[in-house]
């Protein structure tokens, strides 16, 4: 397996180079002028000459006066060393600018991913085993709602119910003091919103996978052999149903980093999803590039992890170099 992983990692290098060229080119094709965006729009008493001088100095400082190819190599070289340049908004290192929101997004997604994964499996299995029963029908309706209703609406409903009506949790923003209990209360509603969204699709996926597996001949054989129902479900059916679940779960986790932008926005939660939108609007190229590369890397690595996970959950899958 190690050889396989090393080979896959080596194969990823040209893919990442091509992706980086594409992302860089697309970011440069964005309309507008990032340097102009750095200069306050009103209230400045700078003369035209002073404005031009400032423009030139900023352009020079951030390397925007160099040819595009040179800019790409400078950026790529710096990125390889872990230096993502300066944010044009804060004029400080991108790494510093993104550290806090990145941490917040991970906190948010870690909890919701874990909860949604475990709950989805439990709900999916039970729904499949008791197909057509009350539990199944109840969650079919509930998950359909979860898929159909937009995330922002779910978030607003939770704010209305849990914050404004019941007064149990804070409605918006980030924790003010930083204590554990307070952090928990501020994380609860955004986590719940994300969980509902991802759990809705994932649990239906698990249910369908399990239904397919439960209808296979080997399940009938297992039952005919007189195996306990638990053994049939968890050892035989679930293991076979896991491959599509692993795929779906991996994409859910990857999607959450970018897809949590709406939830972050509704709850004024300072995360990278929201930050990416702001940076695109502000033409903060270095931040956009850093985050786009992050998502791209996450996706290619996700593919690799998915393949490894297949091998772990399904003994029929052999990873060969």
């Amino acid at each position: 397996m190690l050889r396989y992983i090393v080979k896959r990692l080596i194969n990823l290098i040209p893919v990442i180079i091509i992706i980086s060229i594409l992302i860089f080119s697309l970011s440069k094709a964005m309309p507008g002028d990032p340097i102009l965006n750095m200069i306050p729009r009103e209230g400045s008493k700078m003369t035209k000459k002073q404005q031009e001088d400032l423009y030139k100095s900023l352009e020079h400082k951030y390397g925007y006066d160099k040819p595009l190819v040179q800019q790409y190599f400078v950026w790529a070289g710096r990125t390889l060393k872990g230096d993502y340049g300066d944010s044009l908004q804060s004029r400080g290192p991108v790494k510093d600018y993104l550290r806090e929101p990145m941490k917040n997004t991970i906190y948010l997604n870690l909890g919701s991913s874990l909860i949604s994964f475990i709950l989805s499996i439990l709900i999916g299995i039970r729904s499949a085993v008791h197909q057509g029963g009350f539990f199944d029908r109840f969650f079919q309706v509930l998950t359909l709602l979860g898929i159909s209703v937009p995330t922002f609406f779910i978030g607003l409903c939770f704010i209305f119910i849990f914050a404004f009506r019941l007064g149990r949790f804070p409605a918006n923003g980030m924790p003010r003091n930083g204590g554990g209990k307070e952090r928990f209360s501020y994380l609860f509603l955004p986590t719940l919103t994300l969980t509902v969204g991802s759990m809705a699709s994932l649990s239906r996926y698990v249910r369908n996978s399990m239904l397919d597996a439960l209808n296979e001949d080997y399940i009938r054989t297992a039952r005919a052999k007189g195996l306990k129902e638990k053994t049939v479900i968890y050892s035989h059916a679930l293991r076979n149903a896991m491959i599509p679940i692993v795929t779906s779960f991996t994409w859910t986790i990857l999607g959450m980093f970018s897809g949590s932008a709406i939830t972050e926005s509704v709850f004024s939660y300072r995360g990278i999803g929201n930050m990416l939108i702001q940076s695109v609007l502000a033409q903060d190229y270095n931040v956009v590039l850093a985050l786009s590369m992050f998502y791209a890397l996450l996706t290619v690595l996700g593919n690799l992890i998915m393949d490894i996970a297949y091998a772990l959950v399904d003994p029929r899958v052999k990873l060969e170099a």
Partner: protein
Amino acid sequence: MKTKKIFSSVMALGLAMTLASCGGGDDKPADSKSTEDNGSAVTEDNTSTAAETTEGGDTAEDFEAVTDDNTLVIGVDSLNGDFIQGYRNDAHDVKAREFMGIEGSLGYGTYIRNRDGVYIWNPVALKEEPKSVKNDDGSETTTFKLAEDLVFSDGSKITADDYVMGALFESYPNYATVTGSSNIGADTLKGYNDFKEGKTDRFAGVKKIDDYTFETTVDKSFLPYYDADALKATGPLPSAYICPNLTVDSNDEGSKIVVKEGYEVTDEDKDNYIKAMDTQIENEKQNIEDEKEYAKEEEVSVDQDAISEYEENIKNLEDKKAKAESGDFDPTQLLLEQAWLFYDNDYRFNPAVTEGPYKFVSYKNNMAKMTINDKYKGDFEGKKPTIPNVIIQVVNPKIGVELLSNGDIDIWEDEADGGRIDQMKKAADEGKIGGFETYDRDGYGSLKFICDRGPTQYKEVRQAIAFLMDRNDFVQNFAGGYAVVTNGMYGSSQWMYKERGADVEAKLTNYTLNIDEANKRLDASPYKFEKDGKTPFDPAKAQEAYQKDSANFDYWRYDKDGKQLQVNQFGSTDSEITTLLNNQLPDNAKQAGMEYNVQAGDFGTLMTKLKYPEENPDYTAFNMGLGFGTPFDPWYQYSSEGNDNDSRVNDPECDRITQELRTTDPDDKEGYLDKWEEFQLWYNDYLPEIPLYSNQYHSGYSTRVEGYTGVTPTWSASQQIDSMSLK
């Protein structure tokens, strides 16, 4: 039952995992600034300053004990965390600066604005009323005697050095190029241009007399000036904190920044100086290359004068470098640049030493925390703050009023959305909030034109566009009725409007939807022909074609050269007004033979297209918000020499009026108002932009807030704080 147990266990496990990964609080205290940027000698001094601040009382740890009872929370829709001017200009960053006295009327500026927006001398900062004398050369010198009990939030004394440093610090050449700040320094003071351009090494406009006395001299080119006191306003810079190894040196010729006596130059200073020289030499060499490249690209001869100048600079820099290598150099510039970078990279985000009613604690997670400054002397009204802590926090603006009603935040200011204003009023009636204040915006949403190119260079075209829209529709649909339509550059909160608003409004053209009037204006423009450039355009034909098939309308106006009248507007996608304009103008314009297109995009692109239009620009109209600025001086926006003239107005009449308006004698109030009226008439006729709506802002406060009264567009919670308390 079992399922329930499993569900609740999983939920708890997930949240516990999240919580565990969150770890403990790591709020960075205000004093934990990095000192590397400011040099080794500075590190020691700054460390001691930090220690003093900690001993002084409040730290981030203390602040963590905030409770609802001792903290005022102000909800805002954005916050950048730039706590000095010259970078991103977010209105809510300004609020934080006002709490800390970095801007606004609560600090120790020599002249500050009172509640009416009028500049007055600051009785807290000054021992007596400043004395001004006219000089023979037309300039005016004002002497300030400082109160001797002023201290910064770290307990260090405020002296004349800090005020003189305040005027000098950003006025030096290279300040903007080193920091990237758009602040230009004390441009109204005598000798500024020579000093800024490096022609003199002393700034003639500012002088220290003794530890508590200094004088500033306003340049004759700015005088007379109606708001003359605004030109004399200056504030202290915490120089012992920002540039601990530098001080000011004054003589009859003016002032300059020098290295403090006793400062010993280190090897690191020397190395840094040599590195700086190398960088400058490289830059000069690059300039020569750029010059040659430019000549090659443009196929023109190389500017030999410029090349000689760069070569001369290189020679001088190499001489300086050689001297430095032998140990002979003045580290002032080096230390000054370090101080600028410290100010730019550290103090900007972490203003640990300030002068206002509150001092900085932290900026984290879109939240600025401040705590009461127990060293604060009070404001010009003799008041001091009583609320222990203040937080400015970003919240979702769409539920701002609900958050206020629910008690999550205490203040929600400048609400402009009609639906949410109704909600605020209802909440006040039901007693869910303490109440609200309302005032007219000091600005408006507008349709701004480029006035020197494209079809909008013609006044008649701009006027026609004004007659092709129903501005009351914006007031109703966008602002829910909480706005007014204006016909000039004024707002009802301005004192000028209060004095002469009724008079001037009676004289102005009220632009309302009127296709006939639009056609009349366009008939007076070059676009008065049909496609052949000869046959006069017939409005009746346009009306007929429009009635017949408006979607495929094809009867446009042309000029004598056969150029079609086509106006393209660029608007921000974030703005509802872009959609509203798109719903009205393209269709109405057809009836006047004008093709009007609206394109939506991001605001950055809009600004690029407005500020740097091509010779034949694709867009010449832009919808955007505009503020009036204080003091009110439209010379900046509309004079052909104005620095902020984005509309590219070039009208001698406007140049004269705006110049006369700003140079009215401060004692001639009626003369000023006459000029103000004249300016409004010019504006209304020339229409560099069409004012679309001016909002009536509503600001609400929670039930536990007291003293939040009398707020205006220029006097918000951050200025009112000394009069506020929590129940």
